[in-house]
């Protein structure tokens, strides 16, 4: 009786995992949006942990993250290189703030304080998240 129960739950887990894997593979190969976000390169964007990241941002260089938060402030902006580049601060979970560089073209809307946004980012070698794309949540 007990053996029959074990083999039945193992089958269920295996089927679930297979299903998930098939879904992810379809998304990856089709270049489709993650949620509503564009992901032209099709990189994998990990879950962002502000506490872990802010402990030592430089160690996260090259990582890709999906960051959700509220646009706290536009810290600086520059038009060097032809487009408008902005440095903004995002208020994220745990009352923390994360600086985010928003290059020209990565945002399809006008950035305003208080907007809830989701950004797909890559961490620069200085440890600064640079948005690939940013959208309102």
């Amino acid at each position, binding site marked *: 009786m007990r053996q029959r129960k074990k083999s039945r739950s193992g089958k269920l887990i295996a089927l679930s995992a297979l299903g998930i894997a098939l879904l992810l593979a379809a998304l990856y190969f089709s270049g489709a949006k993650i949620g509503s976000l564009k992901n032209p390169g099709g990189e994998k964007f990990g879950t962002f942990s502000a506490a872990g990241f802010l402990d030592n941002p430089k160690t996260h260089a090259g990582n890709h993250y999906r960051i959700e938060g509220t646009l706290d402030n536009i810290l600086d902006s520059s038009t060097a290189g032809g487009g408008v580049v902005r440095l903004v601060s995002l208020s994220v979970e745990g009352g923390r703030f994360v600086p985010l*560089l928003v290059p020209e073209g990565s945002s399809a809307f006008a950035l305003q304080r208080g907007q809830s946004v989701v950004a797909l980012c890559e961490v620069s070698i200085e*440890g600064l998240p640079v948005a690939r794309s940013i959208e309102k949540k």
Partner: protein
Amino acid sequence: MKLTKIPPAALLLACLASAMAQETNAPAAPAASANAEAPAPAPPRGGTDKKDEEMSAVNPSTGAVTFNGFSWNIGDLPALDMRYERFLMENQSLMKDEKEYYHQLQSLIVLLTGNPFGKFGPQAPSRASFEKAFLALQEIENKPDWRKFDGGVAGQIATQVEALSVKLRESRDTKGQAAKFEARRRNLEASLKFLETDTSAPGAVRRQRLLEEKARLQTERAAYEAESLPSLMMAKAQFQVYIFTLLAQRRFQHVVVAAKLYQALIADGDLGMSQKNNPVSREMNLDADLPLTTISVAQAASMAHEDVRRGVEAYENQIAASMLDAADRTLHAAFMLGEYMPEVRALPAQARMQILAVRQARKQLNSALNARDYAQAKTKVEELAKLAPDFDATANKTQIAVETMKSDAFLLKGKNALFDGDQAAAENAFREAAKIWPTNPAFEKKDEMSGQLDEQMKLKKELDNLLARADYRLIADRAEKFAAAVHDDPDRQKKLRSAMDGLKQIERALAKYEELSRAGSHYAAWEALEEAAGKHPKDEPLALAYQEATVKASDYIGGVRAAQKADQEGEDVAALAAYLAALSKNPTSESVKASVKRLSRKLMDTQTPAP
């Protein structure tokens, strides 16, 4: 007997007067005074240099007058000076009795000399004059109102005259006895001559008896003469001594009277004075070879009196011309010689009082100069110039100017040394200044300045200590004194300004802290103290407030400290994130805002997209 020229005694007295005048003219300078007090060198006695012999000098410390090879102690000059000043102070001149006394004395002189000036000639007075004079002397002696003016001198002269007269009478008796002895001697000689040819035995016996009688006669004669003759000589000598004594006492009128009476008694011309046995001549150290007669002594007295008369006349002329300084010197000289002369005694009291004022001012000037009190000396010179327009103050003024300038120069040198902090040099200079002018009034300023400098040095040291302890509050309490103390010290001035600015900053921070604390803005309140507390950690009120604020804003402080730490370590992103978190708690923090701005710009500039 040989009458020789007189000059010695007369000139002696004349020179005595001039020598005294020189003494009163002594310069007032200390050095000069010191020289004047030094004993005069003894002149050579019996020297061959005539010039040296005629020079006279007065030793002011002993009152000894030296002249022409001998010296004469005239008494204590300071005592004579005191008598002179007492005379100047007497508020009236001749009293009625004194006038009558001097009139009587003058009558005697006219009677004995035949002239009012007492000029002494070789002619002895007549018997009648002698007798009248003798009676006049006795009259003076018998009148107590007159007697007090000469202290019994007239009576003494009468006594001397009487004593000598008695001895002269005895001498005449002695001469008669001597003639008897001589007659007996001649008789004996004749008898002896007669018996020379008689060779018989009785003749020989008689001759032997006569020889024995002759020997006895000689013995008797010698014994008689030995007893009688010296008493006359003694009486003459005593009279001579008394005349000399009167001369020494400067009672010149009495000298003339006594000498004339002596001359009348010793009519045989034996007027020579015995010098070797004369105690007065011994007192005067008279040279035994110096011929001296009663005539020469009387003439000396007469000339001295004449000198006094001339001195008084000159004095009166000087008074009339308001030459009070010269008048004092002239009168002093006349008084020294003619203290008992009527011409001096009769001088008006008012002018004498003026002279006394000049004399006292001159004495005070000399005292001030001797004591090196040049401020007082200057005052006295001015006073003297007013009292006696003829007073020549050139030498005094020059001395005062030179000495005060020297003292002031040393004082200035000392002050400069004091300012330079050279205490030893300053003390030396002040010592030199004090030696020259001990009562220099600038010393009070120097003491004041020295005190100020001491106070200044103390304040500077105190300021240094307070600055080292950063005790700005105590510095502020005495800011004015410190500012005055460091007026010449740019470095300390800068430090003092910095301390005062620091205190202002602290006070501003504390005020802001109080205000924000009351509003409940504890993070901002802490931040208001943050900068001041970092700069001035030793300020107690600030430290206490900062401690309190730190407790209230501990979570905010933790965020800021974390941001600062990351910032320092070059973790710009972490630092920016931490500053942003802190700013969210305290949005008014200018320092956090500045850090956010700075780091934002830095990240914008340096961001490099990942490859």
